[in-house]
């Protein structure tokens, strides 16, 4: 058996894990009352919220684990958590 002293992993390859499958709750970004504060993007531990335009944010469900932080912290209660149905 070959024993290597170190192991090397390529940068950013964790993107292969589609952690969205973990979700029990799903954030819905209504994009109605949004004031563009950006808190949802800043506070998301997965880094899966993106800005489409100034007052329009969206989520990448491939990775969103449904923690609900974005909905809890949203300045204008424009994000709703719904039960995920698979």
């Amino acid at each position, binding site marked *: 058996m070959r024993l290597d002293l170190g192991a090397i992993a*390529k*940068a950013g390859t*964790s993107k292969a894990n589609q952690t969205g499958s973990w979700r029990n709750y799903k954030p819905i970004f209504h994009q109605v009352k949004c004031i563009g504060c950006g808190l949802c993007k*800043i506070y998301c531990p*997965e*880094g899966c919220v993106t800005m489409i335009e100034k007052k329009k944010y969206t989520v990448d469900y491939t990775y969103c684990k449904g923690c609900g932080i974005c909905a*809890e912290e949203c300045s204008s209660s424009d994000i709703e958590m719904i039960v995920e149905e698979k």
Partner: protein
Amino acid sequence: MTTTLTAPKEQSCTLLAPGHTACTGCGEALAAKLVLGAAGTNIIVTDATGCLEVFTTKFPQSSWEVPFIHSLFENSAAVASGVEVALKALGRQNEAKVIAQGGDGGTADIGLQALSGMLERGHDILYVCYDNEAYMNTGVQRSGLTPFDCMTTTSPCGEFSWGNKHNKKDMPSIAAAHGIPYVATASVAFPKDIENKVKKALSITGPKYMQIHSPCPLGWRSKPQLTIQVARLAVQTGLYPIFEIENGKVTKVRKVTTPKTPVEEYLKIQGRFAHLFKSPKGKEEIQKIQEIADRNIEKYGLA
């Protein structure tokens, strides 16, 4: 052969790539994302064994979009010291800043000796401690940074115990006592403050120590959606004082709320303190925790 130290990746995405396997609502994942976001691509990071390392490097994958080295639990600061010296030896110290990272256990307990050496020798490194107040990766064991009366698997509560009977170790003061130029505490509840402090720290030559309060929904038995709220309350009550120490002097603090937020507000939303609310005697324990907050407010002038 010289290789490019850092190759900027897709700038739009975060430097801590998604697909990491941190628990839902993990404060440590958020803290690391914010630190990297502030530091930018020209960095080399090391990390001690712990949740952050485990959930970002599920071999053969990695979430790190910057050069990252993990060696052992106890030696993140020592590895970073080696990296910093190597950059200098190669005359390439202007190409990348070095950031060492560790959990509270990896920093204040098992890695303290390596960290002290790093601070003492004056390496140009920013050390970041992600403080989730216990050894989370191995199942919530008490660390030197676990707060008073907190329930962990090695400080259980019950008939003869209120949980952790020791006080949280004053790690920022220990770091500052090395005579280093910059020490700061921060919290995931205040991301802009983290950004400013990381940028400021990286602009200073020499050893820097930063400790970020990072709620752990699993170990703290708090709801994942409340991660920010829990962190915010720790600061607002005075239980997690936020300050900067520059060359030994406290230069900036974040004030607590007026009127004072009672510590109950913070404690009652976390299962790790639930035992304090189950019997009348628990009130006396909560009073002791209130006194800890009051002492912090007094000591750092947070009112």
